[in-house]
């Protein structure tokens, strides 16, 4: 399968090469969009996840050192496996139940992406909380001709896997809402 993909990529490169100016520009920004319905009210879910200073709902976070809970605050988050993530709070809007966080330093161990930002929103739908997880980022490899494990598809898959981990943690805590 891998061989076929490599062969296909080679063919595509060849076809694009005939155009003369293939991949003249760097990467374009990518996005992901995932959501989950939970067996809890939106208010209860927001009470758990609507903070920059604590993430008790998420397993595997060993330590959080945050400068505050206001837009512009930064935090150093140390994971159980030793990975250290540097983040900034872009938005915290309790009225809209929306929180946005970006990595201030790319960390390919944490997620294979650069300039990564996560936008979490909670909405009430039929008495259940719907959590929407949106990622905005560039691929891990910032130059042209990325290796296969750092191209657009690999970086998108990495962000989706990270967000699936967040979804799994929410389902473990609140239960799936159907």
């Amino acid at each position, binding site marked *: 399968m891998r061989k076929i993909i490599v062969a296909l990529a080679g063919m595509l490169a060849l076809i694009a090469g005939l155009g003369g*100016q293939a991949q*003249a*520009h*760097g990467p374009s920004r990518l996005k992901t969009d995932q959501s989950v319905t939970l067996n809890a009210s939106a208010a209860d879910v927001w009470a758990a996840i609507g903070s920059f200073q604590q993430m008790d709902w998420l397993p595997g976070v060993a330590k959080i050192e945050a400068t505050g809970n206001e837009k512009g605050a930064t935090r150093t988050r140390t994971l159980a496996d030793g990975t250290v993530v540097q983040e900034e709070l872009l938005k915290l809007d309790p009225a809209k139940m929306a929180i946005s966080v970006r990595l201030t330093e790319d960390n390919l161990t944490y997620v294979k992406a650069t300039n990564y930002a996560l936008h979490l929103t909670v909405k009430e739908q039929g008495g259940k909380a719907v959590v929407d997880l949106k990622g905005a980022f560039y691929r891990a490899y910032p130059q042209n001709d990325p290796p296969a494990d750092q191209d657009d598809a690999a970086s998108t898959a990495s962000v989706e896997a990270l967000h699936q981990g967040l979804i799994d943690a929410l389902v473990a805590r609140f239960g799936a809402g159907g």
Partner: protein
Amino acid sequence: MIRLAALLLMAGAARADVAAITSQNAGMLTLVQTENLEIVASTPLPGKPAAVALDAARGRVMAVAVETARLHVFDLAGNPLSDWPVAGAPFGLAIRPDTGTALVTDQAGALLREIDPATGRQLAQWPTGALPSGVAEGGGWIVVANRDGDTVTVIRGDAAQEIAVGHHPFGVTLLGARAFVTDVLSDQVSVIDLAGGRVIANIPTGERPYATAFAAGRGFVTNQYDASLTVFDEESLKVVARIETDDYPEGIAASSEGQILVANWFSDTVQVIDPVSMQVVETLDMPEGPRAFGAFTGAKAP
């Protein structure tokens, strides 16, 4: 001459604007009639297009596909007319109203290129600062925002001047003899007096300002990370309001009917804003990843 003016006036009354929206992730060009907000065409535009400009007088839309490094030319019904390879890494785009030629920034070569959209031939080039991004033309001025140079290049005739601005200037819009440049990493707009060749004011914005448009005596700046517009008075240059938008607002332009249109990259929408009441009056769904970087509106001949 008087008869021509009268004809033009009559034509003006019957005119409706077209807004041309590039969707970068979907690889689509969407044309919206601004009068009734109907989508009149949806055309494939591959190669991750971002910059777009509309030439009302000649009935053309042009867009730059960054991945394939091509300049695409369409009519106002969305029919592709031609597309041309452009040297280097083309990104930003403006159309010279007097000639209908395309001004394209080359991020690899640190150049501005002038391209004939009928033949794809390069007519002229000017050196710029590092990573030239947005470009605007008006009143005999050409202004280029040099993202990695933290400068703008101001070109008038044979003369060119580089002026220091804030950090990562990206979008540039002209109003009279002033240029308004969004300094993405400084969270401000630099206001440049073009005749004097200097920055005369900095307007504070929300986080990650992207582009500016003018209507009803006010300037409207998209703030990508803040999901908002900063509104300032075009005379006093004072901030007067903040308008919330959908996520990652980017390209912004005014229609001749006096609306402000904003392309929201993350939310896949275009929002229409009344510049007087400063309210969002309509939200349209777009193909994935609308960016519409440039002067993307213009009147369609009847």
